[in-house]
């Protein structure tokens, strides 16, 4: 407040501070944080095990699930909302894919004899996996739509609605899977999309450079970033988060914007689920991705988004997801017990955001 007063009266001191306040500097400082965390583990983990190609690829694969879901979460948090249900949406997607791959029925042969189990995937080996992915993505998107319409229609806060649907979607996933892991009959390409490429034992995969799932993430991230920056919807998302009243006054369809954002969050949750399916080894476990929403939210917040809305960027969240993945991977390779890992990461998340706020306040004063 007083700083702006000073700027006004002091004239053009804004000129000199603009570099420090620019978005580029903001992103660059996050990138530096990523490098710092990475270097720390690179030095601390013995025998250079941390910066092997295999481990780097692992970090990418790990972070892909978080980063993909973080695309939607970034939009949600920019609108000053939150989506606690995304972990459950991922689980729902995983289960639906497995279930689709596992559709089967009993057939009694014409001539009589023993009943035979017929799998749909054996009938249409090409079509069924594609269908499985599409149906699962549709389910995830509908889950997001349900979040959006509920919180807009019933005028509830996002926290409550998604807290509820977090349980609901998880329950539905368990219902579909009969509370058991689903083991699909056939190994399909879906289970391979996150498999290593460069460090794979199978040299025929190395031409892809990165796992297909990571490519998928990169395409989705570019799409999401363009959407936020260059479309009317993107501008509306920032406006709704910065000040919903103003947005309404300016003719922005606030409710529709929110519904779209949560629907997109559902869709990106579905994409993340697709990757999780592969990372989890192609098994439809309804208990997968528990507490992922917290990692994803942490990634977005470390990436510079503000819970009070109007702030946040895809690139920032992407870096945030990488930082989270590096932290987890690094802690594991340090051979710290799980308990210590959790404590360390918790402390780092808090301090990272505290440091970020401190930096911003200093910048506002400069």
């Amino acid at each position, binding site marked *: 407040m007083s700083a702006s*007063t000073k700027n006004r009266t002091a004239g053009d001191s804004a000129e000199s501070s603009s570099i420090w306040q620019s978005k580029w500097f903001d992103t660059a400082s996050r990138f530096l944080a990523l490098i710092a965390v990475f270097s720390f583990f690179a030095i601390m983990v013995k025998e250079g095990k941390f910066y092997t190609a295999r481990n780097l690829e692992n970090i990418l694969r790990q972070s892909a699930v978080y980063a993909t879901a973080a695309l939607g979460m970034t939009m949600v948090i920019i609108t000053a909302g939150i989506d606690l249900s995304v972990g459950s949406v991922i689980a729902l997607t995983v289960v639906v894919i497995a279930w689709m791959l596992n559709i089967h029925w009993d057939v009694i042969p014409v001539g009589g004899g023993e009943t035979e189990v017929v799998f749909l995937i054996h009938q249409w080996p090409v079509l069924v996996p594609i269908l499985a992915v599409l149906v699962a993505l549709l389910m995830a998107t509908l889950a997001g739509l349900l979040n959006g319409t509920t919180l807009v229609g019933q005028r509830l806060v996002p926290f409550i609605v998604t807290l509820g649907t977090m349980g609901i979607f998880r329950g539905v996933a368990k219902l579909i899977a009969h509370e058991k892991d689903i083991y699909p009959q056939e190994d399909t390409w879906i289970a391979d999309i996150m498999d290593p490429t460069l460090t794979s034992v199978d040299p025929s995969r190395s031409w892809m450079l990165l796992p297909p799932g990571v490519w998928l993430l990169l395409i989705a991230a570019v799409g999401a970033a363009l959407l936020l920056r260059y479309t009317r919807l993107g501008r509306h998302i920032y406006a709704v988060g910065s000040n919903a009243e103003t947005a309404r006054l300016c*003719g922005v*369809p606030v409710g529709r914007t929110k519904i779209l954002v949560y629907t997109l969050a559902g869709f990106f949750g579905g994409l993340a689920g697709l990757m999780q399916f592969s990372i989890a080894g192609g098994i439809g476990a309804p208990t997968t991705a528990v507490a992922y929403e917290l990692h994803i939210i942490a990634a977005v917040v470390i990436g510079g988004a503000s819970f009070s809305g109007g702030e946040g960027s895809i690139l920032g969240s992407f870096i945030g997801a990488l930082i989270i993945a590096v932290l987890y991977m690094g802690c594991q390779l340090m051979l710290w017990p799980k308990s210590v890992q959790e404590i360390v990461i918790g402390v780092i998340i808090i301090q990272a955001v505290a440091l970020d706020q401190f930096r911003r306040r200093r910048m506002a004063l400069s």
Partner: protein
Amino acid sequence: MTGVHKRFGATLALRGVDLAVCAGEVHALVGENGAGKSTLMKVLSGAHAPDHGRMWLDGTPFRPRNPLHARQSGVSMIYQELSLAPHLSVMENILLGIEPTRGPLVRWAEMRDRAATALKEVGIGDLDPEVQLRHLPIAMQQMVEIARAVAIDCRVLVLDEPTSSLTQRDADNLFALIRRLKSKGLGIVYISHFLEEVQEISDRFTVLRDGQTVGGGITAEATIQRIISSMVGRDVEDLYPRSPRVPGETVLETHDLAGMDRPLSASLKLRRGEVLGVAGLVGAGRTELMRVIFGLDRLAGGALTVGSVGGTASPARRWKQSVGMVSEDRKTEGLALGLSVADNVTLPQLRGLGPWRLVTPSRQAAATQPWIDKIPIKCGTPYDPVHSLSGGNQQKVALARLLHADVDVLLLDEPTRGIDVGSKVQIYRLIDELAVGDPAAGRKPKGVLMISSYLPELLGVCDRIAVMCRGHLTEARPVDQWDEHQLMVAATGQEQEA
């Protein structure tokens, strides 16, 4: 009693400010937004330490370490935004931080007594100290905040724009209270944009400009014109420019319009090329009238026609029908403070700001720049966040939004509230230009509907004025048939049907 002397010389925001407030006087502090009043307040309240200069309180050096220390030393601030805890009771608020205790326990009886004493001193002894603060009207809350200052034996009371959200009657009560506190020997610093108020309440005044003291003296000896001149740093010949205007076709019409609560009945006709003013007290239903017209509040009855289209519509439809609105509350409703100037200006009309229905930030900025130059808005670049601008410039951003959307009907709710005189004049000039139009440049005259509580402004800017009183809107009369007294009489409902 010795007087209170303060001397500052902070760089940048304050470049040598001298201010001497005596016990038992009301000292007005005036200046445009950005002149350094807020910073001066911050230094005084201990939120910032001065870089140079010294302050004395009752003859002893005064160096507040923080706001609490300043308060305990006897300097209390009443900000525009009250700093009270709405969920606590009145007495808890008054004695917040200085609760009488025995060990860890609060002594409720003593708390009640001390709160009651403080309330009596500010003239609201009949208020129950145990009522929850949020149930009180805003004027009452302000009194409670002053009572809090009294309860800690304050020596200097600083009031920042205390009447900006008060009705005339509440303001009168406040003035009575200020006079009473003055007679008790308090030094009172009164900050206001309403120079009429300054004339009414203050004994002496100090003018700040660009962080410096540029004038001052005994209020009774100064004219408003002179005060304005020293605030702006030049003579302001014509506060209210008014070119000859030719009213055209009707662009907005309401007939017995009613909202859910307010207004009860409002009929008006706004034509192209005229400025129609709506006077009235706060709470009379003026803002609600505008909100119903713009589709922000629901219509409960009556007819509403915009251009040739009847009926209600959403704000989004209204923008398409070439109607735009500036909200009275720019902080919570009018502007997205965290977003850039360009984002705020272009938000209602993002079409055509990039290829293939996309929106590019550079085109947004390019569309905004002409308005920044024309109005003018003082900011670094169109990418600057709106919160970095002064109040007056923020308001101009809200107005630029309507210009960018090129609307035919402008709904302006208190367009000059809380902004400096220089910005006010620029806004008056803009309104005049819009109402006149510019046939040469192909710009048609616009219709402006303007709400204001500042009567000289209404009389100066409008062609016709209607008055809202308790939800009913009187018929609009040409401005030359009104004067301030008549407007006030009509607004308070004392006018008998003649």
